[in-house]
């Protein structure tokens, strides 16, 4: 059954829908699977219901009340989703944290959200909670899931999920109808999620989303691209990312498709292949990673395989271009494409876990047209999604058969999108959020007369598609006065498998420059093949031959750009940009203002006559340790 058939009223909440689906499917259908101890283990809707119910009642017996916040952190596992659903059933508000959050971020969010409960997966998360407990006065209970390493923890505010559920069973004996009654009390306008947006400039802001916001967004997306309850979805991206909430909760619950959780984050790719999902939503960097893998495998393989691949890509690109131009595909191209499918594409798609894929979405950041065409040439129906956390994740999507690789598509139903006189994208829909938590000023700036001001600059093209230019504050002015999007150039650079990250500079400067981060694995492999010795990222990145390699990639990206927009000079950074160093947001967007400040010496060198820039900084490891780094970086010129 397609999800769009569920009627969403103002009275409906996520827990009410959950209850309805559990009653409908019961023991007869698998709600989720988790790979554990090497085997996919199913949980039926009845199991889902029982686990959520007792966890919810247990938390209620520990003092969870309506409107209380429950902070959660951990990898994607059924238990994580149970905890979220349990919080919502009791009328609580779910707050998700990224699993790799550093202690300061955890403290800021737990404290700012006034979270009363903290649900962590393993010892590592519990340690984070213990470290901040004294500084977060509202925090009362810390609940954990994985017993590994927990044998020496005896604090009285610590409790395992099974223990909480045991309390829930006891409470149920006293008040058998409490759970259903609590769900009944909910209303669509109640807040269900407090989501911290990864600010590229300032501290994270907490966006408040109601049940109505989440449910209408799910319905509107599903009415564009219907999913079925026989579908499979792999949940492996952080729950703290709105896109994952969209797919696992909003759409997942309405449609009733099966959620699959990988064994470990490291096995996700393999597990995706085993499941072969029907629908996929991931930020560009995941697709970029896949592209890179294919490109590297291609370089590595035998002559005959390379020839077949070249043939298949050539045919694939041609057919994809015809589709993009909405031209009919002649029978001989269809035939050649069929051969390309049989010989190459079919296997490649299987390796990427895409053999059953109906819809693949990307969103959350800009994706380069080259990557886009790459997937369409493979026969993957990849589409852009545009939206923000503040609009419950999505407002714009490509339609089947109407995909343009330089746009993000057209609005989903019930959604209006306009461009202000200044060129800012604004939107209005039932899914627009309720405001920022404890931040009136930001709310006033973002939400005007029901219109959501995105802070992105863009325009609507002749076909009614939205084109997102860049974040307004990121748009550069070139030396001839033309506006230019650094993001556009960066995504082009990243199409090279050797480049992991790029930072393009040039706002109001005489020429354009770039700071490049090489991909350690791919360039490392390249260095092995070329008998270049290296011991670390730093050493590899500074090798003159690697500089020449990167230069070649830049020259490739420089092609068919206007002369003023071409990159003239670059530096290879001694490390990759990292969210732990605040250089990227947790969703991997570059924090330009921050890196511009941090690497101002490099920028200075790029715009002067020096050949070498001396660096002296500290880098932070995930466990909080810091290391001082002193090195010299070379500035290299690009032939234009």
């Amino acid at each position, binding site marked *: 059954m397609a999800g769009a058939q569920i009627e969403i009223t103002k009275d409906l909440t996520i827990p009410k829908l959950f209850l309805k689906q559990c009653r409908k499917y019961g023991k007869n259908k698998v709600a989720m699977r988790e790979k554990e101890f090497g085997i996919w283990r199913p949980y039926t809707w009845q199991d889902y219901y029982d686990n959520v119910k007792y966890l919810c009642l247990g938390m209620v017996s520990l003092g969870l009340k309506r409107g209380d916040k429950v902070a959660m952190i951990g990898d994607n596992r059924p238990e994580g989703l149970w905890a979220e659903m349990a919080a919502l059933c009791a009328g609580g508000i779910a707050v998700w944290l990224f699993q790799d959050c550093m202690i300061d971020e955890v403290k800021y969010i737990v404290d700012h959200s006034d979270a009363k409960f903290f649900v962590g997966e393993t010892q590592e998360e519990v340690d984070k909670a213990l470290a901040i407990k004294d500084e977060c006065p509202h925090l009362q209970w810390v609940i954990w899931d994985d017993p590994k390493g927990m*044998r020496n923890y005896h604090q009285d505010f610590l409790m395992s999920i099974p223990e909480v559920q045991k309390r829930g069973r006891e409470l149920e004996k006293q008040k058998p109808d409490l759970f259903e009654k609590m769900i009944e009390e909910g209303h669509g306008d109640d807040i269900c999620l407090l989501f911290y947006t990864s600010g590229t400039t300032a501290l994270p802001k907490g966006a408040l989303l109601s049940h109505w916001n989440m449910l209408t967004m799910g319905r509107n997306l599903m009415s564009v691209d219907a999913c079925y309850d026989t579908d499979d979805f792999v949940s492996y991206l952080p729950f703290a990312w709105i896109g994952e909430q969209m797919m696992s909760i909003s759409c997942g619950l309405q449609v009733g498709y099966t959620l699959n959780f990988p064994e470990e984050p490291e096995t996700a790719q*393999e597990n995706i292949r085993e499941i072969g999902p029907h629908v996929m939503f991931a930020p560009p960097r995941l697709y970029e990673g896949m592209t890179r893998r294919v490109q590297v495998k291609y370089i590595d393989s035998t002559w005959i395989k390379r020839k077949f691949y070249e043939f298949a890509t050539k045919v694939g690109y041609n057919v994809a271009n015809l589709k993009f131009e909405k031209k009919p595909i002649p029978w001989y191209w269809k035939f050649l494409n069929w051969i390309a499918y049989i010989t190459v594409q079919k296997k490649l798609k299987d390796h990427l876990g895409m053999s059953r894929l109906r819809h693949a979405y990307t969103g959350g950041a800009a994706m380069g047209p080259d990557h886009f065409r790459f997937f369409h040439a493979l026969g993957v129906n990849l589409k852009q999604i545009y939206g923000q956390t503040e609009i419950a994740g999505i407002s714009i999507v490509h339609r089947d058969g109407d995909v343009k690789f330089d746009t993000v598509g057209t609005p989903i139903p019930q959604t209006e999108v306009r461009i202000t006189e200044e060129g800012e994208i604004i939107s209005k829909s039932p899914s627009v959020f309720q405001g920022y938590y404890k931040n009136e000023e930001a709310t006033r700036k973002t939400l005007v007369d029901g219109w959501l001001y995105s802070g992105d600059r863009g325009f609507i093209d002749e076909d009614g598609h939205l084109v997102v230019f860049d974040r307004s504050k990121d748009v550069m002015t070139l030396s001839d006065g033309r506006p230019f999007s650094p993001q556009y150039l960066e995504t082009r650079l990243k199409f090279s498998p050797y480049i992991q990250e790029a930072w393009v500079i040039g706002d109001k400067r005489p020429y354009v420059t770039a700071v490049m981060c090489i991909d350690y694995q791919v360039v490392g492999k390249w260095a092995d093949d070329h008998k270049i010795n290296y011991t670390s990222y730093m050493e590899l990145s500074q090798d003159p031959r690697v500089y020449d390699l990167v230069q070649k990639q830049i020259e490739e990206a420089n092609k068919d750009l206007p002369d003023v927009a071409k990159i003239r000079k670059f530096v290879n950074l001694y490390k990759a940009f990292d969210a732990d160093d605040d250089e990227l947001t947790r969703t991997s967007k570059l924090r330009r203002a921050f890196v511009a400040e941090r690497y101002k010496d490099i920028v200075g060198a790029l715009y002067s006559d020096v050949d070498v820039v001396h660096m002296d900084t500290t880098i932070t490891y995930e466990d909080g340790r810091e290391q001082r780094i002193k090195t010299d970086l070379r500035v290299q010129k690009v032939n234009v």
Partner: protein
Amino acid sequence: MAQLPDVKEGETLLKLEDIHMYFGKVAALNGVSLEVKKGEIHSIIGPNGAGKTVMMNCINGLYRPQKGNIYYKGQKINHLKPYQRAQLGISRTFQKIELFGGMSVLDNIRLGRHIHLKSGIISGSIYVGKTRQEELKSRKFIEEEIIDLLEIESIRDKTVHMLPYGLQKRVELGRALALNPELLLLDEPLAGLNLEEVEDMARFILDINEEERWKVTCILVEHDMGVVMDISHRVFVLNFGNPIMDGPPEKVQKNPDVINAYLGTEDLYATRR
């Protein structure tokens, strides 16, 4: 092999009595006595060539000492071959990795289970009844106890020689654990690992020693003094075949003979951190 009696925690599990081991005229061990209590992590430290690995080899039966006795659970085991000692629950890892490089991680670990597999070639080939149960039990043990503990889910099916050194060390520990040992001999498990891998490995050793389902007594030969002093219950110091002292880490660190022979006068923890 007769079933040996159970030893309670805190009682002597292994006892070496006046062990002498000569290679030609070189005395590798010169009258070494050691008592390992059940539930302990008992470390052996000493400079290179002190005889630490020789001691390990004597315990698991690779070497036969010329003089002296070895008792396990009160029984003399001098005459037993390595595989017989393995059947008693003595397992080990090696300083230099001794895995089957061309086999998968899972197969290497499975090999460690072979002493627990009783079924023969015929029942094995038709896979019914007891054989099936035995296989399933064995699989459950490997997956739930070892792979989960050592966090090697993502390399299950990888060929061992393709793996980085740190992971190979982990696989070796996994194979030693597959035996379900009561006494585990760890010969330099941290050598050649980076800081993060050292932290992981130290955590695994603690888990194996403390976790209710394992409770394995460990003899640890290691040069990383930071880890040795942090996780050991007792430390035995050896110098060119001669025992110097045996005691809790705090005392060992203060003993002037030990400092002279091995640790040096500098800060004890300077070796790595």
